[in-house]
């Protein structure tokens, strides 16, 4: 089968869907190919911009502060790339305005969605996780807003788990959080924990987050839950209730509001591990935004290769079970993710890019085609310095075009975005979805410009 689109975007996570939406907004037709699961839907749903320097231990008060530091210390960081170009304003300022534009755009796009986000570049939010730990992040979903329990003198924070749902142990989160806030001499006056019973579809054990969330999406499902929460809140005098993120896939915002009204406490969701409902909400909201903009999303389709004429890609070959398609195009964005997304593959004899056969590099921009992944790991499993294998990927020019060993872009009209890029370690910096957003935003704009050139 043959299709046509001004822009083909390979990869349907944060980076690809943002790039696609931007293309639509530029008046161009586009197709997003997505072969499988994305890191985006596994994420906690909180959008990190930057929390730490690589190997740093002091969190940035604000993403702005972090962007300035990165711009001066890491000029090839995907954010810093925005600073390149002629004349004024200065490098770091350009980076900040660039990131601000992308963040403002996304907030606007998601404002009526299930994944409405709050926050901005002026301060990092210390969000609570299901382990009772905190991490600095930039934008959180509205249902995760905890309204400053940390500063209220006579607050009581209640961690509330669900019986038979093993992804969250309220007791452990409460203890871990309490000890930490005692050390830091901050936080609520009291911390408590308890469990409630929800039996989606009659289950009493092995309950999954998505079962609970789907169950709570039904109008009448809160009925079972509300009295239990109310009773616990009243007994313990809780002013704030921390729940695992299970309040609904579609209806979380409404559910949260109803619970708050009925129990008279502030209710919020914690950052969680996969399968993570807020990650799923974000993924869905991005997909919906893209579709609404007029883009075409082909799920279960894998880009297999692409054809170049002279210095431009002219078509992308994709496959799905029992289906093979060729899409003629004017520009291409590669947003295939890292190892989870499948954009990069690391074997014992080297690191390869999986669709366009692009050059891979290490975090220090040394060619990585022959590296042994072991050599790019730390002996420590969890390390503030990270494992440098996760900062390997593609290196790009200031327009986000992947560069080949000769220093030239692979093609005039191929752009790359998201975690497939090298030069940053989102795990330790806390910058994953932020880099995907920003690079997707600009790769999309540049691809649109490149496509327009063709006519």
């Amino acid at each position: 089968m043959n299709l046509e689109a001004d822009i083909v975007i390979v990869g349907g996570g944060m980076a690809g869907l943002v790039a696609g939406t931007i293309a639509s907004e530029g008046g161009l037709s586009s197709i997003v190919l997505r072969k499988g699961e994305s890191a985006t839907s596994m994420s906690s749903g909180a959008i990190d911009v930057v929390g730490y320097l690589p190997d740093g231990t002091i969190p940035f008060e604000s993403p702005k502060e972090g962007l300035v530091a990165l711009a001066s210390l890491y000029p090839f960081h995907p954010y810093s790339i925005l600073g390149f170009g002629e004349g004024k304003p200065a490098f770091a300022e350009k980076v900040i305005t660039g990131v601000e534009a992308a963040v403002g755009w996304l907030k606007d796009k998601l404002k009526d969605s299930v994944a409405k986000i709050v926050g901005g570049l002026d301060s990092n939010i210390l969000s609570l996780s299901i382990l009772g730990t905190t991490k600095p992040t930039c934008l959180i979903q509205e249902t995760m807003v905890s309204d400053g329990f940390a500063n209220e003198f006579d607050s009581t924070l209640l961690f509330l788990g669900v019986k038979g749902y093993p992804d969250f142990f309220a007791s452990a989160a409460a203890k871990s959080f309490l000890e930490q806030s005692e050390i830091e001499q901050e936080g609520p006056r009291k911390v408590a924990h308890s469990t409630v019973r929800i039996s989606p579809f009659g289950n009493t054990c092995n309950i999954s987050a998505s079962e609970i969330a789907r169950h709570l999406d039904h109008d009448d499902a809160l009925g079972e839950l509300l009295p239990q929460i109310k009773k616990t809140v009243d007994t313990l005098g809780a002013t704030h209730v921390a729940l695992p993120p299970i309040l609904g896939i579609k209806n979380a915002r409404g559910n949260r509001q109803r619970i708050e009204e009925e129990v008279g406490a502030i209710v919020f969701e914690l950052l969680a591990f996969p399968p993570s409902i807020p990650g799923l909400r974000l993924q869905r909201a991005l997909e919906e935004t893209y579709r609404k903009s007029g883009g075409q999303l082909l799920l279960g389709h894998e880009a297999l290769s692409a054809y170049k004429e002279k210095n431009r890609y002219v078509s992308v070959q994709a496959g799905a079970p029992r289906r093979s398609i060729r899409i003629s195009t004017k520009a291409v964005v590669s947003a295939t993710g890292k190892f989870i997304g499948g954009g990069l593959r690391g074997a014992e004899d080297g690191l390869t890019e999986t669709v366009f056969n692009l050059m891979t590099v290490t975090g220090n921009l040394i060619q990585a085609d022959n590296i042994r992944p072991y050599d790019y790991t730390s002996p420590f499993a969890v390390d503030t310095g990270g494992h440098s294998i996760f900062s390997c990927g593609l290196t790009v020019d200031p327009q986000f075009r992947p560069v080949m060993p000769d220093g030239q872009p692979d093609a005039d009209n191929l752009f790359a975005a998201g975690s497939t890029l090298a030069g940053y370690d989102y795990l330790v910096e806390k910058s994953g979805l932020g880099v995907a957003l920003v690079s997707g935003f600009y790769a999309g704009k540049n691809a649109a410009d490149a496509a327009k050139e063709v006519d």
Partner: protein
Amino acid sequence: MTKSDVVVVGGGSTGTAVARDCALRGLKTLMLERDDIASATVGTCAGMISSGLKYMDEPHIVDMCSQEVVHLNRIARHIVMKNPILTPMLELSDLSSGGSFAEEYSKRAAKREVPPVLFLTPEDSLKIEPKLNPNIIASMYFEEFFIDPFRLCMLQAIDAQRAGALIRTYCEVIDITVKDDSVDEVLFYDRVKGDIERVKTKTVVNAGGPWAPGIAKMAESNVEIRPNKGAHVILDRRVVNVGIIAKAVDGRMIYLFPHENTVLLGTTALDTWEDPDTLVASHDEIEYLLQSMEWVVPSIREARIIRTMAGVRPLVANWKVPEDKVTRGYETIDHEFEDVRGLFSFTGGKLVMCRHMAETVTDLVCEKLGVKHKCTTHEIPLPGMEADVDILAFSADYGISQHAVERLRARRGTEMTRVLELTRENPDWRTTICACEPVLEAEIRYSIREEFPQNLNDLRRRVRLGTGPCQGTFCTYKASAILMEELDLSGEGFKVDILDFLAERWKGKRQSFRREQLVQEEVTQGMYTCVANLDQSEIEYDPKPWEGSI
């Protein structure tokens, strides 16, 4: 100060077997293990209780092993499994070397209730195992028994405990004093409490595996071993239906054994001068094993490697013979010859011989103490062997999947009913905590209450937590929370346990880090580093021996 008839140093297969034998013969027994039960060599072995393909030229050892298999099937049938094995041959020379093995094996087959060796055509071989190289000229078929090494050690320890022995883990022997040419006191450091204790004793059994020389030295005695490194590569599932034994690139024999839910590819045998505490599999060992197995199972590299493990065999000190030709038998040393009465040490040995080794040394100990009881360890069943278990009935009765019930049975035999009973009062404890295995919350709580684990790694040895394809990615934080609840640990303890277990798993994952494991590790790091921010936690974390210094 406490007193003991015998102090057993080391809680591997040998030490736990000795403690059990001593206790069953009525001796006042104290077993001291510096780490956890089965935390060292035995935990890295393949669990094969073999008829002795590797030591055909030592017929007395083959006899002993065959007899031990019969014993283990009598006392521990619930944790024994049988694997059919194919030995594919690519050349005529392979065939001739197989002949003498077939003869020796078949002589002892009836005793172990297995068929004699069969020679199969390539077609029949491929029917049994379609992954074999179609160019083989024939294969040998035979059957071998395997045992869960962790459960064997645990059950030996628990049985010893029930017979009155004191089993102390996390207690490191730091000195053995000798008075009037006899052992007198054992000093040990309790790593959990932080105390030094001493115990008076007339006899000491040094079952320290590769650490035996160091332990002997504490009593001014000498033990010499020839330390031999062995490594395994572990694949994520049962990629073969049967065990495969093949000739490696250097002409030695290597194997691919289905083991629990995984497959073991092993093993190397290398003289080593490394510290056993920091030892890991090397890139060369991994590639040696893969390339060798590729000849008979060409698709082996496509299988997903989840980790490696390596251990040191404390071989008998035969020198100037090739490393793979050192005897696989054992020796018991009575240190009386160097004027230290009451101290006994082992060199050599195998998992399959642990009961035999224990009987030999306990005879010597009893003689020294003037005790006349006979050995019964080959007759008295280990806990859980009381009866057969009806998986289907239990599954229906307790509302737990048949798969989970069967895995529970394979670890615990009849004792599983005590785990299942816990779910009557707490139906939500039927929840799966480790989905790879699977392990239920009830079994974790039961194990914490009954089997004295101190941390998640100890739980792994007892219930196989975190041993599957995800290597603890999804169960670590859940099990840590349960451990915290059960042992009333602090919030810091909760996080320390998470980090410790991630570190322990990483030790084995890192060496073979490639392909799908990069995907898996991105998820693990995404959870613990990116979301939970544990790389920034300020808890007191003790670097592990293999992590080196920064």
